[in-house]
């Protein structure tokens, strides 16, 4: 019990102490969270009518962000597979960071779904036994289950590993290995289930494809690792935590394959729809060319395609992906490319034209943007806080004291350059 008290105390000290850059970063995040909370309060008071969603386009920016972030969360598995299954050591050291990113991403997913609910106070209707979870019929019920399971799984694995390292113990393999192995199918499951949520709807031909789940996985393995690489480069630069080039290059190589598969599947879908040219082409046409003079998404999707193709070449050519400036450019291109394609580019055309062939052009309102900004800030805040504690533990700067009870904080700032704190996500 005393141990826990000391860990908590040490953690609080870590979270509260930092350089000026750290305070600025956290301060900005807290401000954005506040803005988001005010915007959400406004939405709660006036109903979802303050968004641009209507009966024709009944899901919008919130669900787009949700879908994208499920992918980011699922992609943590890309680090876990080589780290634990193949015992590839350079990646093993950083796999915990991937799991922490997954936790933050899932937290954002849950928030995005919650703000999209018309009656969020009735969330308890989803809890089995207390409410009624329509499982196994509803894919949304499946999604609730697997997302929460994945959140708990990652929290337990990362928490246990960090806890062991704090006490300078080797994690107990017979406990943690089965969990890690289980987290691999779980990661694939969260994204597959999210894809099935869409592809199971016969009413929406744009989603009603068997290819949707593979496409989801491929794009997740682009955007998640791209974000991870950016985080690695920042962590490496601003903290004492060493991440080997080898590990980063290995992840970058895997991203190259994933982008190829993603582009290939997208191309396969475009061919099938255009060549057959049935009435089901309308949504894809709206996305790529515009339909009956409505073309709000066209510039976005072509930007995404351009980003993805450019990113692909950067990741494909070894000289380019090993150049860390180009690597950052590539990661940003892929991250935003997939964000557009897998977010608005996937959700909105499902509703345009709607089932009665009416066209309602959706564009998020200011409130939707502010609420979403607030949620992203919350996610980054969670991730920053997790890293703030995890990195010193991984470094060996934060561990149990000699007496086995108190906590020892080695270097109170945990940085090489005292002025530049680990303001991790700053680019």
């Amino acid at each position, binding site marked *: 019990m005393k141990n826990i008290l000391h860990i908590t105390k040490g953690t609080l000290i870590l979270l509260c102490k930092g350089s000026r850059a750290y305070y600025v970063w956290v301060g900005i995040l807290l401000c954005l969270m506040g803005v988001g909370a005010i915007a959400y309060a406004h939405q709660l008071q006036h109903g979802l009518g303050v*968004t641009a969603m209507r009966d024709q386009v009944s899901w919008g920016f919130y669900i787009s962000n949700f879908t994208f972030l499920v992918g980011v969360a699922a992609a943590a598995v890309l680090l876990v597979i080589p780290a634990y299954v193949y015992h590839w050591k350079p990646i093993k050291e950083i796999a915990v960071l991937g799991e922490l990113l997954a936790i933050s991403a899932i937290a954002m997913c849950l928030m995005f779904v919650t703000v999209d609910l018309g009656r969020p106070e009735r969330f308890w209707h989803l809890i089995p036994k*207390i409410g*009624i979870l329509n499982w196994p019929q509803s894919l949304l019920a499946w999604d609730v289950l697997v997302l929460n399971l994945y959140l708990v799984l990652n929290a337990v694995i990362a928490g246990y590993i960090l806890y062991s390292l704090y006490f300078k113990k080797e994690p107990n393999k017979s406990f943690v290995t089965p969990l890690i192995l289980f987290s691999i199918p779980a990661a694939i499951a969260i994204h597959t289930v999210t894809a099935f949520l869409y592809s199971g709807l016969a009413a929406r031909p744009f989603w009603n494809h068997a290819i949707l789940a593979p496409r989801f996985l491929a794009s997740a393995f682009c955007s998640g690792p791209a974000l991870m690489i950016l985080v690695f480069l920042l962590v490496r630069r601003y903290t004492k935590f060493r991440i080997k080039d080898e590990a980063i290059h290995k992840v970058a190589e895997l991203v190259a394959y994933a982008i190829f598969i993603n582009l290939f599947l997208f191309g396969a879908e475009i061919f099938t729809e255009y060549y057959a040219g049935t009435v089901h082409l309308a949504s894809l046409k709206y996305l790529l060319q515009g339909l009956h003079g409505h073309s709000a998404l066209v510039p976005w999707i072509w930007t995404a395609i351009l980003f993805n193709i450019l990113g692909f070449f950067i990741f494909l050519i070894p000289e380019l992906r090993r150049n860390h400036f180009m690597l950052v450019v590539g990661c940003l291109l892929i991250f935003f490319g997939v964000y557009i394609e897998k977010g608005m580019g996937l959700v909105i055309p499902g509703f345009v034209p709607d089932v009665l062939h009416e066209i309602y052009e959706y564009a998020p309102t200011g409130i939707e943007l502010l609420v979403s900004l607030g949620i992203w800030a919350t996610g980054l805040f969670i991730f920053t806080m997790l890293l703030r504690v995890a990195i010193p533990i991984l470094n060996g700067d934060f561990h149990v004291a000699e007496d086995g009870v108190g906590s020892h904080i080695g270097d109170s700032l945990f940085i090489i350059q005292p002025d530049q704190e680990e303001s991790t996500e700053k680019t």
Partner: protein
Amino acid sequence: MSDEQQKETRVFKQTRRKVLKGLAAGAAVLAVPTPQASASVWEAFFQKHFREMSKDELVRVLARLEKTYSRQYGKEVTVSATPPIEGVRFGYGLDLSRCIGCRRCVYGCVEENNLSREPQLHLIRVVRLQKEKGVDLDYAEHYYNPELVPEPGYFYMPISCQQCENSPCTKVCPVQATWKEKDGIVVVDYNWCIGCRYCMASCPYGARRFNWRRPQIPAENLNPTTHYLGNRPRPVGVVEKCTFCIQRTREQPGRYPACQEVCPVGARKFGNLLDPKSEMRALIENKRVFILKEDLNTRPKFYYFF
């Protein structure tokens, strides 16, 4: 239900009550509404799913709703929960060759079903189609607004909930807030719906509507005879849909749905599909019939004649 099953349900109900009490206590600490309001606010918050309520609980809930609505609208409002009639499965027919596109059904429905006037909410969508193109929704005009209907060269097709036998909307709901009743009507428990709108994404007919803002109905326009699963005033943030005027059609003697009654040209038909002597059966057997989006296998109980 066997004894053992009953016992299980009872145990399950008791644990649930305990958990709910705990939740209530916890939540009460966090947010304390005014003492007078609190009782009914908490009762509404912890209200069970319609189909899980016992008879007593249902009676209490109906009484609470009647009281709330009566006070809110300043007149006596009744809320019934009349169950389906045995041996009845409702079906709807629409004669496209008769419909003149006047939209009286749309507004008849608004009045009968207490649909929001501000913002306006309609459960029937009438589209104008070109005679040359036939039933091709690509050529549908949703917002036609001529001086006079019908217009030469056009015909009209009203679309509302098709009350599918194989209904995608009820399948996808994560909390079973929507389901198909024994008489074939697909209903929503407005007090159980969490407002996720998955059902709207799944409906091939665009039949479901969401209350994006608080629905407003002038008190003098409120239809005070309501049904729990039908036309009682809806809260903001939940989905609603056509219920074949459940508050009329389930009564004995029953009444036709409001849209059927108001139609000036007799284009709308309604009846019991299980009754071999009903008008609906005769029409289905003798007219040229089609159903919308047959290939999706939703098996609508809404038949178009032409």
